[in-house]
């Protein structure tokens, strides 16, 4: 039996509200996701202040301006696992069954869980921008640039959350989801998040060239340093959106497999 779109939308809104409330009611979860990336930005700004004069670095006033995009991406990656981990917890403790026993839209159960961490991703991007503004960081692309970076925070959190949901739905274990986090962390450091690809060489450069995180970060970086351009906008928004489409398809497939296996 097909469900009416309006009914699915109502379920999605109600379940999104639940996941959003859940995130903001856990200060121990929100705090580190905001503080650690800013701490790393401060540390990098101090340690690498002279690195910006190296060949291959773009023309920037400070390392902080260069690393803004990396800080935003790092923070969002930190926070994006929470939605999938919460989904796994729902499966573990039986709340997932409670929802399945109700006539709830199955896709709304999945996306409602991801909504909270995606909104949190957008909020993280906004907070990082607002905190770093007084330290001389300016997004040259203006309002469009600021909005794009915040939207990119949402899309990145959604894309990564959907990918992690595949693990959550496959294993039903919050520990397994948390266990995949180091992979994201390694991928971040094997990208151009903290140094331009032009300064890299060998295997490290080749991995960074193939790493989609490099292109997402560089899109935001160009908006920050150079201003609006079509390429910068596409890399900032289209890459996370594209990844989100792909990971969403994978998550839906895994949801289907989980429901079929019951």
């Amino acid at each position, binding site marked *: 039996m097909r469900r009416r779109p309006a009914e699915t939308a*109502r379920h999605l809104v*109600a379940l999104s509200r639940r996941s959003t409330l859940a995130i903001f009611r856990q200060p121990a979860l929100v705090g580190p996701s905001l503080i650690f990336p800013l701490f790393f930005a401060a540390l990098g700004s101090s340690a690498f202040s002279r690195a910006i004069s190296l060949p291959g670095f773009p023309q920037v006033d400070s390392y902080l301006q260069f690393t803004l995009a990396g800080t935003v991406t790092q923070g969002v990656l930190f926070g994006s696992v929470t939605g999938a981990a919460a989904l796994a917890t729902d499966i573990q*403790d039986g709340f997932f069954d409670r929802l399945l*026993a109700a*006539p709830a839209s199955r896709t709304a159960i999945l996306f409602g869980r991801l909504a909270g961490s995606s909104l949190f991703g957008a909020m993280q991007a906004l907070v990082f921008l607002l905190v770093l503004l007084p330290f001389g960081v300016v997004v040259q692309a203006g309002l469009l640039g600021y909005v794009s970076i915040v939207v990119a925070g949402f899309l990145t959190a959604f894309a990564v959350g959907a990918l992690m949901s595949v693990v959550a739905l496959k294993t039903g274990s919050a520990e397994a989801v948390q266990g995949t986090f180091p992979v994201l962390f390694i991928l971040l450091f094997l990208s151009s998040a903290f140094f331009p690809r032009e300064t890299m060489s060998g295997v490290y450069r080749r991995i960074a060239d193939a790493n989609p995180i490099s292109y997402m970060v560089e899109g935001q970086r160009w908006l920050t340093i150079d201003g609006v351009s079509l390429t910068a906008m596409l890399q900032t928004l289209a890459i996370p959106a594209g990844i989100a489409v792909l990971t969403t398809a994978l998550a839906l497939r895994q949801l289907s497999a989980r429901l079929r296996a019951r």
Partner: protein
Amino acid sequence: MRCIGKTERVNNAPIVAEQLVRHFGEVKAVDGINLTVNQGEIFGFLGPNGAGKSTAVRMLTTLLRPTSGTARVAGFDVVKQADDVRRNIGVALQDAAIDPLMTGFELLELQAVLYGIPANKMKQRADDLLERVGLTAAADRRVGTYSGGMRRRLDLALSLIHQPVVLFLDEPTTGLDPMSRLTLWEEVRRLNREGTTVMLTTQYLEEADQLADRIAIIDHGRIVREGKPADLKRTVGDPTLLINVSRAQTDSAKTVLARFGELRPTAEGTLGVGLKGGAERVAEVVRALDEAKIVVEHLELSQPSLDDVFAEATGHRLEGAENAPQAG
């Protein structure tokens, strides 16, 4: 509002299962269950942990697909019309946690949206249910601060938000203190008086005896007895004489007891015999034991109970029955 389905109903009995089977690999968790629960009944599913009660309920509530067999709940097929089944049943599962970060009211609100209750009726419905289960004062507190009894009562309220035709309660009082059990029993009776058909699983004999109009005893995935508690107890017949003797005299005591009736399974360390002729023959048994120089440490005549029915049907006592908290 009584829910109705979007596809055709085919049977009037709220729950009908035919040859319902569920295997998990080599394990036959439910092995060919047939049952019919009639309109307005409280039906008890009694059995020890691992007997197949919860698996059967999970199939009837659409959470598990049967390996084979069919079941209809509220007139709808649990596989082919699963969404219609869900719209018409209330489910309170023993192992389904309630989100500790939400308040009681917020959870009722969420449940109301999932069951399609209009926003203008939602608040009144939630308030009524909170009052009914005695949680009005705690409505705006996060569930994480609730006691076990309060969570079970909220769980019951959540399962009633859409006024279901059939209510499934999976071990509703496991782990509750005696007072909370009595409160929940009273609420179940009240719901039943109002017309809700209730199916409950329990491992507590007293709970099945007190609440259920009819029970099915399930063991190793099969229903081994089914009927009204009083009728089932009558089928056991003679009362059970229970005695405790020293370990060294166990075998000779068994020989003596066997002269007075059929030996019955009992808890470890106790011997039991279905005493033909009832209480009048107790003195005769005592004399026979005395003549055999057997020292009786404890003697008790027990009228047939559901545990006797269970023991007679399965060859063993209901696991953990002795440890169940006594209500009242």
